[in-house]
């Protein structure tokens, strides 16, 4: 009886082995026969229609809306969190309508050449003013070209004083 059972397991193993191998071959065979499943991007040719993914970390940007307003209140959280010190914030104090002095962003300087794209600044931003941009073609011959001022000229802040 035990011998019969062993012979049974022997052939059952062969059968199961072949079935599982065929399953694997079906997967690769299906990929081979469907050219639509190719995920490779032919990069320099498809520059025009290339769409990066939503969570792609190309560079840090300060979000501006259609009225050229950003929501940075110059709290300096991002600069403090940055492990490389690649963010410098210059702010000033102006008199608000209600008579209280208010902190206003002058320049939000971002050193792309020092950035490691860790994302701590975007996480730290309480106003949700920072985000990652999709642009990734940053190769330049001069390092100073990578130092960027993120707030656009003439932009104002819509951030509420905390």
């Amino acid at each position, binding site marked *: 009886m035990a011998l019969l059972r062993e012979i049974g397991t022997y052939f059952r193993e*062969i059968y199961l082995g072949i079935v599982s*191998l065929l399953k*694997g*071959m079906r*997967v*690769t*065979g299906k*990929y*081979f026969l469907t*050219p639509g*499943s*190719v*995920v*490779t991007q*032919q990069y320099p040719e498809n520059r025009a229609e290339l769409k990066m993914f939503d969570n792609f970390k190309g560079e840090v940007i300060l979000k501006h809306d259609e009225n050229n307003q950003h929501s940075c209140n110059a709290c300096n959280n991002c600069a403090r969190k940055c492990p490389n010190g690649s963010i410098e914030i210059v702010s000033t104090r102006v008199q608000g309508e209600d008579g209280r002095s208010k902190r206003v962003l002058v320049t939000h300087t971002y050193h792309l050449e020092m950035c490691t794209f860790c994302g701590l600044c975007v996480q730290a931003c309480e106003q949700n003013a920072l985000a990652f941009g999709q642009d990734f073609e940053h190769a330049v011959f001069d390092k100073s070209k990578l130092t960027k001022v993120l707030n656009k000229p003439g932009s104002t802040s819509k951030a509420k004083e905390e």
Partner: protein
Amino acid sequence: MRDSSSLIASLTSWLDGTFSPLWAGVVSMVLLGIGILVFYSVLGLYLVYAERKICARMQNRIGPNRVGPMGLFQTVADLIKLLLKELIYIRKADALLFNIAPFIVIVASIMAIGAIPFGKGLQALDLNIGVMYILAISSMGVIGILIAGWASNNKYSVIGAIRSGAQVISYELSVGLALLCIITFAGSMQLSEIIASQQDGWWLFKGHIPALIAFVVYLIAGTAETNRGPFDLAEAESELTGGFHTEYSGIKFAFFFLAEYMNMFIIASLATTMFLGGWLPFHLFGWEGFNNVMDFIPPIVWFFGKTAFVVYLMMWFKWTFPRLRIDQLLTLEWKYLLPINLINLLLISFLTLMKWHF
């Protein structure tokens, strides 16, 4: 195109008429040698290209597509790169054996190419023990691999070479027994006669289920014998940094690389010859019109089409299955393939004795 033997005969008679007998022999040998070498290198390069393209498609990639149209010249460029690279001299290696090993590997596979029937009459060497000759010569390659591993004076190389030795020696049995099944059917070891015996149907179909089992066993064991696919323990990049060819560079590495692909071609063409009717066209019994259309396709196209199909199957294995462990490899051979093969051979002998095959 139909029959290459008349072409070969006219070439030989022209040679005999033009030169003295000695020089006719020399010239024909040189021509044959150059022909086989050119065929070998071009086919090897394009097998590498095909492998890269097929593996890319199976992994949802595109593969080489920059050098030439569809990347057709990628492997040619790779070869030029390998030719220009430095042959690094290993100080502690055994210089003679180290240098001779890649040549043993490549000569073994070139010699096997000579006996393969590509078309009617298109066969350099039609021995009466053709199957045995190809098996014997193609297993010479493992000696080259063993020597390469030993002479490199590197622990990874030695491990790779010893694995390769264990693997080829055990799987040689299965390859031999699977081919013995067809030899039993055909009653001959001469490749041209084995093809002639398939005039009324390929052995894969004529031999019922036992021939199918023999074909599957042959495919598995043949893949193992080329040190490829799920059985590439001899090189095992992730554990042995390349195995027996770790220390080789430049054109010597290219020899190992090319020989691997040509061994795959030899195994596939042997499968074509033994199981799939060689250069014979595909016929369906009773369909006269269909058979005439099939006859119109030249035999050399049939041969390369069938071989390409078997090569594709082997590439499919390689890019689907994970690598086996050494104990799993030997278990597969000694506990599964060999007993199945022996019983299969017994069954086939019985079938042949009773003349139950078609």
